[in-house]
C-alpha cells in the first residue's frame, strides 16, 4: 500500500491527527446507461413497478443462459478510454458466489481474474476544487488500478411486518466498478475526485452519475500510517464521502493513540460516525470461478480506435479551451465550471456564441455572451423555477436578446424583462421573433444619445417625467437639494425608470434628474 508522507493530513482540528498520515482509496460502482441489461434483453429501469423488468435469465430460472450486451461493453470501453486506461486485448468473466435474497443465481458475474481495463488515471486540477474545498495549487494524479464490467444485484427492502421484499428490476443491470490506487491523502481530494468522475461519466454518456439515486455508489478504503485498512460502504453523496473519510481517519487515529489495534472491518456511515458492519476475517470466501460458458472478451486495436473517435471532447480539454487567455472564448474559470456543471450547457454555449459572433464580432463578445448565459439566463431560469435544457429557449431567441442589448437597441433592464417573459411563457415563445416582441411591448430604447440624431421630443418627454416624479415626491426632493441625503436621488431615478418601463438608460435618467434638482 502506498502512503504519501509528503501530503500528510493536516486539516483536522485535532492535534492528534498531525502525527498520522491518511491513505485512502475508492471503489466506485457506476450503472451504465444502456437500454437493456448486461446479459439479458430485459430493460434497465429506475423506479419501475417492482419485478416488472425481469427476464427468465434475471430471475435465474433453470436452463437460462447469459448473452453479453455489446452496448454495455461499448460504454464500459468509453469510460476506460476516457480514464486513460490500458484496455486489455483479452478479458473474461468470473462468478462471485454468495447467497442472498436479491442475488437470484447465487453468484454475481464480474471480472475478477482478468478485468477489461487496467492502469488508468484521473488528474485533479486546482480548478476542480472550490474555495471551501481546495486541493492546493498543484494537480494531483489519481491512479486507477482497474475497471471491471459486472452485474448489479436486485434490491431487498424490509417492512415493519418483518417480511423482506425482493425487487429484481435492478438485477443484471450493467455496472462498471472503478478501483483507484490508495492515492488520496485527504478527504477533500476524494470528494473532488467523485464529483469530477460524475461529470466525466455524464459528459461521455456512460452513467447518469446520480449518487442519491444509486446510479453511482462509492465505497472508501481508509488506513492510517500504512496500517490495517477499513472499508466504508455505500456512501450516497460527495459530502458523505468526505465526511466518512474524516470520521474514520479520526477514529483510527484515536484507537492508535490509545495504543489500540485497527481490525480489518467493513463499516457503515450514519452521517456522523462510521460503525462496524462486519469483520473481514470472518468474512465470506467468494469462491471466484471463471464463468464456464461466457466467451472471453476480445478487443482489437480497431475497436479501441473506433471508441476513441466516438468520444466527445472531455471536460478537462473543454475547460482548457474555454479558459485559454489567448483563445477564442476567454471565459473565466468560474463561468467555465458553471458551463461544465450542467449537462449540454457547453454545447449550447458554443452554438449561442457562434450565432452571436456571426453578427457581432467584437473581441469580448464571446466572454460577454458567456456572462449573459451564465448569469442572466441561468439566473432567470432559477427564478422561474426551471432547469436548463437546450430546448427551453432557442439559441436564436437568446442570441437576439444578447445582440439587441449589446448594440444598445434595448436597455439591459428591458433585456431582462424580455428574457423573463420568454422564460415564463416557454410554449408560446417557441416561434417568437425577438424584434417583434420588442416592438409589441414597446421596449425599444428611447433615443437619448447625444449628437445630431438626438431626439428633442424624447428629451422633453424624459424631462417631463422626471419633473412629475419630483413633484410627487417633494419631501425626498428636498432632502436631496439640501444635501441631507444625496444618495436618495437613486430612489427618484428608480421611480422614473419604473414609469418609463425601463426604456430609458438609467444614466440618462439620472443626469436629467440631477439637472432638474441642480445637484452634481
Amino acid at each position, binding site marked *: 500500500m502506498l502512503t504519501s508522507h509528503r501530503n500528510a493530513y493536516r486539516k483536522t482540528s485535532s492535534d492528534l491527527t498531525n502525527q498520522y498520515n491518511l491513505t485512502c482509496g475508492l471503489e466506485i460502482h457506476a450503472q451504465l446507461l444502456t437500454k437493456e441489461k448486461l446479459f439479458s434483453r430485459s430493460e434497465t429501469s429506475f423506479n419501475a413497478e417492482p419485478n416488472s423488468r425481469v427476464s427468465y435469465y434475471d430471475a*435465474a430460472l433453470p*436452463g437460462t*443462459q447469459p448473452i453479453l450486451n455489446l452496448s454495455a461493453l461499448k460504454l464500459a470501453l468509453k469510460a476506460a478510454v476516457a480514464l486513460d486506461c490500458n484496455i486489455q486485448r483479452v478479458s473474461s468473466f468470473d462468478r462471485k458466489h454468495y447467497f442472498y435474497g436479491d442475488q*437470484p443465481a447465487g453468484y454475481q458475474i464480474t471480472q475478477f481474474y482478468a478485468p477489461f481495463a487496467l492502469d488508468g488515471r484521473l488528474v485533479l486540477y486546482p480548478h476542480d476544487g472550490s474555495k471551501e474545498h481546495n486541493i492546493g495549487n498543484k494537480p494531483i494524479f489519481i491512479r486507477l488500478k482497474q475497471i471491471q464490467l459486472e452485474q448489479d444485484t436486485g434490491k431487498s427492502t424490509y417492512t415493519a411486518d418483518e417480511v423482506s421484499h425482493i425487487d429484481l428490476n435492478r438485477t443484471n443491470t450493467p455496472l462498471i466498478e472503478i478501483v483507484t490506487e490508495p492515492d488520496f491523502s485527504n478527504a477533500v481530494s476524494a470528494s473532488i475526485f467523485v464529483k469530477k468522475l460524475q461529470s466525466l461519466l455524464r459528459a461521455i454518456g456512460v452513467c447518469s452519475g446520480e449518487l442519491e439515486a444509486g446510479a453511482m455508489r462509492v465505497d472508501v478504503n481508509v488506513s492510517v500510517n500504512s496500517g490495517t485498512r477499513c472499508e466504508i460502504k455505500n456512501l450516497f453523496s460527495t459530502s458523505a464521502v468526505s465526511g466518512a473519510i474524516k470520521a474514520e481517519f479520526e477514529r483510527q487515529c484515536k484507537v492508535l493513540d490509545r495504543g489500540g489495534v485497527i481490525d480489518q472491518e467493513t463499516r457503515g456511515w450514519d452521517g456522523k460516525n462510521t460503525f462496524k458492519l462486519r469483520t473481514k476475517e470472518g468474512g465470506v*470466501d467468494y469462491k471466484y*470461478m471463471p464463468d464456464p460458458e461466457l466467451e472471453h472478451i476480445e478487443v482489437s486495436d480497431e475497436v479501441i480506435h473506433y471508441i476513441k473517435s466516438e468520444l466527445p471532447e472531455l471536460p478537462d480539454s473543454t475547460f482548457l479551451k474555454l479558459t485559454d487567455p489567448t483563445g477564442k472564448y476567454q471565459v473565466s474559470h468560474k463561468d467555465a465550471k458553471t458551463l461544465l456543471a450542467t449537462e449540454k450547457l457547453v454545447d449550447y454555449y458554443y452554438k449561442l456564441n457562434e450565432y452571436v459572433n456571426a453578427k457581432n464580432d467584437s473581441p469580448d463578445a464571446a466572454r460577454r455572451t458567456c456572462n449573459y448565459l451564465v448569469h442572466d439566463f441561468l439566473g432567470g431560469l432559477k427564478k422561474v423555477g426551471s432547469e436548463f435544457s437546450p430546448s427551453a429557449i432557442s439559441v436564436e431567441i437568446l442570441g437576439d436578446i444578447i445582440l439587441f442589448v449589446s448594440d444598445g437597441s434595448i436597455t439591459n433592464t428591458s433585456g431582462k424583462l424580455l428574457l423573463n417573459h420568454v422564460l415564463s411563457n416557454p410554449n408560446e415563445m417557441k416561434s417568437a421573433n425577438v424584434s417583434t416582441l420588442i416592438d409589441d411591448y414597446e421596449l425599444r430604447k428611447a433615443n437619448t444619445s447625444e449628437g445630431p440624431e438626438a431626439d428633442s421630443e424624447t428629451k422633453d418627454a424624459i424631462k417631463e417625467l422626471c419633473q412629475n416624479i419630483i413633484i410627487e415626491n417633494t419631501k425626498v426632493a428636498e432632502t436631496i437639494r439640501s444635501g441631507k441625503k444625496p444618495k436618495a436621488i437613486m430612489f427618484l431615478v428608480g421611480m422614473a425608470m419604473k414609469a418609463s418601463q425601463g426604456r430609458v438608460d438609467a444614466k440618462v435618467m439620472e443626469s436629467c434628474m440631477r439637472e432638474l434638482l441642480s445637484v452634481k
Partner: protein
Amino acid sequence: MNMNILKREAQNVLNNIRLLNPRTNAFISLSPENSVLTAVEASLNAKVRSDISGKLLAVKDNFCTQDLTTTCGSKILESYRSPYEAQAVRLLKEAGVVVVGKANMDEFGMGTHNVLSAFGPVTNPRFSDNSYSAGGSSGGSAAAVSADMCHFALGTDTGGSVRLPGAYCGVVGFKPSYGLISRDGVVAYAQSLDTVGILAKDVGMVRSVFNILNAYDPKDPTSIQPSIRKRLFSAPAENEITGRNNKKWRIGLMTDCNLSELSPVVKSGWMESLSYLHSLGHEIVPISIPSIRTALPAYYIIASSEASSNLARYDGIRYGSRANADRSDESRGGPLYGPTRQDGFGEEVRNRIILGNYNLTGDSFNSHFLKAQEVRRKVQNQFNEVFSKSNILISDETIYNAEGVDFLVTPCTTSTPPELAQVNKLPPSESYINDVLTVPASLAGIPAVSVPWKVKGETIGIQVIGQYGDDLDVLKIAQTLQSRK
C-alpha cells in the same frame, strides 16, 4: 409416411409405456395419451418436413418443457413447470415430433446408474427381473428407447451420461461435438462439459435427429458460430447411408483403455469390433492418450466446481420447493437457505456441491481447480496430436498428425450392467470409475457415440470418437459397426 402407420406405431409405443413403465420407471411424467395421438395427426402439418415427423420422443427431465414438469430428478424441483421450452425440444416439435413424456434421470445429471433420482431408480428393460442398472444419468431416456416406449430420446452427456446408459441398455447413444446443439433451456450441471445427446435404436435415426438439432442458436453463448459450421458441414458427407463405403479409414486402438478394470467380455467385444473393421479394409493403428488416467479426477473436479455454482440458484425463493424452516424464524442465524437445500437435494448432489465448493475455496482453487484445467488442456492436446485432422477450434492448425488416425474405437464401459443390489453397496468414489472411458471425449469436447455390440450372448457398447466436428463420420463408423451381419 402414411398416417395410419404413424398412428399404429404411436399406439404401440403408448401400449408399451402402459405395460413397461411401471416396471422400468423410465418416465417421471407422461403426456396424456389422447394429446399424443392428436399431435401425431397434426404432425402432417409440421412447420419443417422431416423423416421423423410423427415420431414419439422421450425427453430427459432436465430439458425445460412447458407442458410437463421439469424436475431434473430432484425433490427441489418436484413440481417445477418452466414458462418456456428448451430450443432442442422446440426444434423437434417444429419438425412434427411428439413428446411422449419426461424421462427419469440421476438428480441434476449426477450419477451413472440412475438410482439417484428423487423419483426412484430406473431398471434396465433388457433384464426381465428388474435387478440391473440401466446406467445414468440419462437412464430413463435409454430405457425408454430400449423398451420401445419412444422412437428416440433426448439426453444430456456431461461425462458419459448418454453413452453409458446407451451401452447398458443396448441402444445407440450419441454425444455430439460441444456447442453444436443448443443448450438453451437445458438445466446446467457443468456447462463447459454439458452437451445435448441423442439416443435411438439405430444410427440412421440418430443422424436424422442430429441433422435437425445441429443449428446455430444465438440464445446459447456456447453455440458454435455459423461461419465455423459452414466450414464443418458444407461438404456433403460421402456415401451417406451405406455404412460400407469405399473409404478406408485409419482407426486408433487406444492402448490406454486396456485397463485392469475391463471385464473379459468387454475386452473381447472391443477386440472383435476392431477385427471386424480391419476385415473391411480399415487400418488399425495403436495410439496412446496417456493423460486419460488423470482425466477422471480432473473431470470430477471441474464438474463438481461448476455444479456447486450452477446449483446455488435453488434457494426456494422464486420457484421450487422450500423448507418450512426457511419460511419462519426457525432457521435464523444458520446458513441462508440451509434447510431448503438440505431437504431438497439428495445426498450425492449435496456431496458434489461440497466437493465443488472445496475446489473453489482458498488455496484449493490453485491446487485443484486450475490443475484440473491444465489436465483438461493436456487431454485436448493429446487428442489433437493423434488425429489426422486439426481441430477447427484451435488457432494453431499445425497441431495434427499426418500419420495420425481418423477415429478412435474404444469400449464404452468397463463391464456389462451391474446388478442394482451391487450398485447400492458401492461407495460413490468407486462408482465414479465407471466414467473412465467416456470422460476423455467430454473433456476434449469431441464427438463420441456408443453403439451396441453383441459378444458371447451379451451386449456391450463400443465407443467411436472423432476429431471436433467429425460428427457425421463418427456416425458413419457407428453405422458400419451396427450393420455387422
